[in-house]
């Protein structure tokens, strides 16, 4: 087996502020071609204390060195469950940087922005087709932002019907953003238990006249399809509620099944997961939201619409929940997602979902028996193991850290909360079986090391820029910025 992790020359690098030298500069501006002007002195600050003074080469070398301490999808396999770390196509980056798209001011009159509006209209139409919803808004900036939009839309629908329902049902497998969002929409959260998947009985036992909505994730965070979804949606609807779907895991379903056809009323997409836009070290993403016909009037706005051959912003949106951002959303991310959808076509998207599911099931087949598999239902795009069978006093965290030495980004760990010591692996479709085999070999080797030489896990990682970090002290005595006195 090849161990990918190895030590090249890793260069140290100080903080920017520790490099700074008075008088250095890393920029040039044209000479001022108008007379100087001044503000009243009482409005003006002194120089910005502590701000760095660096040459361009100082700055370039600094950030280049920093970049080498990171691990990205381009560095290697990144099986972070529920995050869909698929390959980010390069042409999408070129597309987003086309000057006609990148340099366009958001207040440009719509008749001078027809190209971007056309792209946005086509993207929202394409997302509606993939998901089975009547309409999609592109405004939300991230998944959690889309959740907020969706839950506010649900609330607005209830308010319009003079319904004062106060509760939202959320399964225990849900992302933490779901309950946090429900609270932000003014709802009380009622957690409900699942047995891998939600049962009709469990939902029924909580579904009363005070429940505004059920929030589900489908496939859920265990990588399992909620097979009772149609019956559950019907039940919730019959009792006057709506169903929200967290679309984080849509990568399993493109061209296979559409949430809008299952009875779901609202769903957010994660363009940075399913539609290949880069995760950027933690954003920017984009979280468009699809809804059924009935909920269209409440969508955040103004949205883009096509009238004849012209694209424009809607004007009739009295019932809209309003805007969630200063402008029209993360348009640069929309361009990348549109570029992806056009590169893949409908058949290509379906193929992506099939290969994503194939890859997850292949990993499952190779690791079952080595790691405990808590749920036996057929997996979709991700598979969850636990550390129950691990020997040598090692735990999930230790497996994760040891994987770093083997050259992999670890899977999502300790989530979902319902599985003790969860190891959540989502390979995505862009990995070949060769990569999966090497990864599985590493996972199997690590289970053996736990038994024979647990120190290899407990002291891991050994090959990374830094070793395990003291997170307790970081939280107890927070140092959240550099200070000159140091």
């Amino acid at each position, binding site marked *: 087996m090849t161990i990918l992790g190895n030590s090249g020359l890793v260069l140290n690098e100080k903080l920017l502020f520790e490099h700074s030298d008075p008088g250095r500069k890393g920029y040039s501006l044209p000479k001022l071609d108008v007379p100087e002007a001044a503000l009243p002195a009482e409005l003006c*600050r002194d120089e910005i204390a502590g701000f760095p003074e660096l040459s361009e080469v100082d700055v370039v070398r600094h950030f280049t060195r920093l970049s080498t301490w990171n691990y990205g999808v381009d560095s290697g396999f990144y099986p972070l469950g529920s995050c869909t770390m698929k390959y980010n196509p390069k042409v999408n980056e070129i597309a987003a940087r086309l000057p006609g798209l990148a340099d366009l001011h958001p207040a440009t009159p719509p008749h001078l*922005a027809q190209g971007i509006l056309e792209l946005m209209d086509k993207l929202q139409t394409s997302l509606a087709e993939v998901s089975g919803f009547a309409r999609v808004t592109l405004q939300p900036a991230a998944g959690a932002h889309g959740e907020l939009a969706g839950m506010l839309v649900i609330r607005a629908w209830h308010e319009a019907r003079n319904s004062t329902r106060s509760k939202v049902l959320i399964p225990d497998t849900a992302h933490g953003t779901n309950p946090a969002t429900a609270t932000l929409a003014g709802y009380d959260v009622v957690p409900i238990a699942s047995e891998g998947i939600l049962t009709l009985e469990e939902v029924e036992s909580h579904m009363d006249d005070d429940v505004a909505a059920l929030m589900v994730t489908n496939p859920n965070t265990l990588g399992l399809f909620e097979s009772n979804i149609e019956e559950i949606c019907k039940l919730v609807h019959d009792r006057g509620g709506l169903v929200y779907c967290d679309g984080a895991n849509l990568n399993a379903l493109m061209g296979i099944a559409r949430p809008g056809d299952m009875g779901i009323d609202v769903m957010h997409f994660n363009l940075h997961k399913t539609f290949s836009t880069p995760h950027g070290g933690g954003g920017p993403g984009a979280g468009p939201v699809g809804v059924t016909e009935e909920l269209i009037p409440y969508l955040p706005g103004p949205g883009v619409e096509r009238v004849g051959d012209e694209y424009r912003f809607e004007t009739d949106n009295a019932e809209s929940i309003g805007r969630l951002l200063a402008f029209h959303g993360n348009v640069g991310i929309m361009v990348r997602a549109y570029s992806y959808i056009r590169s893949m076509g409908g058949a290509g998207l379906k193929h992506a979902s099939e*290969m994503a599911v194939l890859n997850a099931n292949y990993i499952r087949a190779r690791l079952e028996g080595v790691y405990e598999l808590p749920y036996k239902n057929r997996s979709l795009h991700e598979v969850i193991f636990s550390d129950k069978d691990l020997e040598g006093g090692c735990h999930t965290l230790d497996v994760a850290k040891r994987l770093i030495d083997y050259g992999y980004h670890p899977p999502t760990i300790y989530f979902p909360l319902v599985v003790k010591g969860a190891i959540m692996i989502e390979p995505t479709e862009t990995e070949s079986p060769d990569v999966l085999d090497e990864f599985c070999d590493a996972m199997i080797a690590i289970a053996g090391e736990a038994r024979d030489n647990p120190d290899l896990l407990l002291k891991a990682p050994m090959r990374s820029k830094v070793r395990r970090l003291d997170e307790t002290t970081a939280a107890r005595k927070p140092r959240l910025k550099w200070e000159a006195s140091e």
Partner: protein
Amino acid sequence: MRYIPHTAADVSEMLERIGVKNLEDLFVEVPGSVRLKRPLDLPEALSETELLRELKKLAAKNATPSTHMSFLGGGAYHHFSPAAIDLLVSRSEFYTAYTPYQPEISQGTLQAIFEFQTMICQLTGMDVANASMYDGASACAEAVLMAVRLTRRKRVLLSRALNPRYRATVATYCLYLDLELIDVAVADDGRTDLKDLAAKLDNSTAAVVAGYPNYFGVVEDLAMLSERAHEAGARMVAAVAEPVALGLLKPPGELGADIVAGDGQSFGLPLAYGGPYVGFFTVRQKDLRAMPGRLVGETTDLDGQRGFVLTLSTREQHIRREKATSNICSNQGLCALVTTIFMSLLGKQGLREMAGQNLAKAAYARQQLAGVKGFSLVFDGPSFNEFVVRSVEPVADVLGRLEKSGILGGIALGDDYPELADCFLVCVTEQNQRSEIDALVAALQGGAA
């Protein structure tokens, strides 16, 4: 498909290992009744060449500073962005990584965020900055929610001179939280009206929110606003949509602000029709644990080396769930990196020089425009790089006429401010050459003649 490596042989070998006959068998848990029984109705896949051809066609239909002279601002600004920035953030170790959950292999992102937090604190004069928010408007909304949490009060005063898109975003976030949002009038100088503020402030007020500079480009008397807010036990929220101004202006932290929320787009991010931009969010040390968003802190590893980690996450949704300080998960990491590199390159002198150029160009434009018959300046408060112009000729006609001369002359204010229906907002940055300002003036004169 070039992004998917599987050959037909791969697929059959993998299916065999899994123990199923075909791909269809992998989807047994998806009931037939919800299966899509037709192909997705999307246009056929394009090659790279075809794709770029199509996108260039779309891009060519948009007006940008290379096709039009632009005086558009209003929360998004056309500024100089050093070439090194895009090349550095194009390093895929930065842009193809995710949130730094595994600090040992994410030190690049973590150290850069730590540097971002530091520089945002230096810039705003505040104690603590988080790792970023979506944009200035949503950061402003989060600031309001935080002030409400801290004060347990229900009334929020928003200056009418605060960017109307920020006000609208605050309203959306607060829709169902049983809060009272009240507008504070604008005085003749374009600043928030202190008399109206005094009349509306009471001991149920959680926050006073004002732009700095405000939407009209005018510099608020932030010290006075903070003083009034504090007298009533409310928090002062300063919203900074144009951070270049902080190269010259006193930092809000010196003027009593409790929370400073703003947008970093001016610091190197492309206009991109409104996003992705990046929100910044800063607070006083004492309020640290009530703040939303991710935080990076310094620590050491097992060998005693300096390193950085995500910290104080017990405030956040993945731990606290429904009791979290916000539902925000990731932020705008790569955009924060752009602003970090921008601030590093511009540095202490550069930001001041850039701010000075904005001030001088806008002052020149103000002076020139004030001399054109039929046009006048509306507010006389001190202003930075934007100002409001009143026109005798209907605003739509003026802007339409300028457009024919290849000029995007400004933003009409009537939709957001009915009382300013005869006005438009003009923005002048260091990117506008004197010849462009002169062309704007000449075009306006042309119509009056």
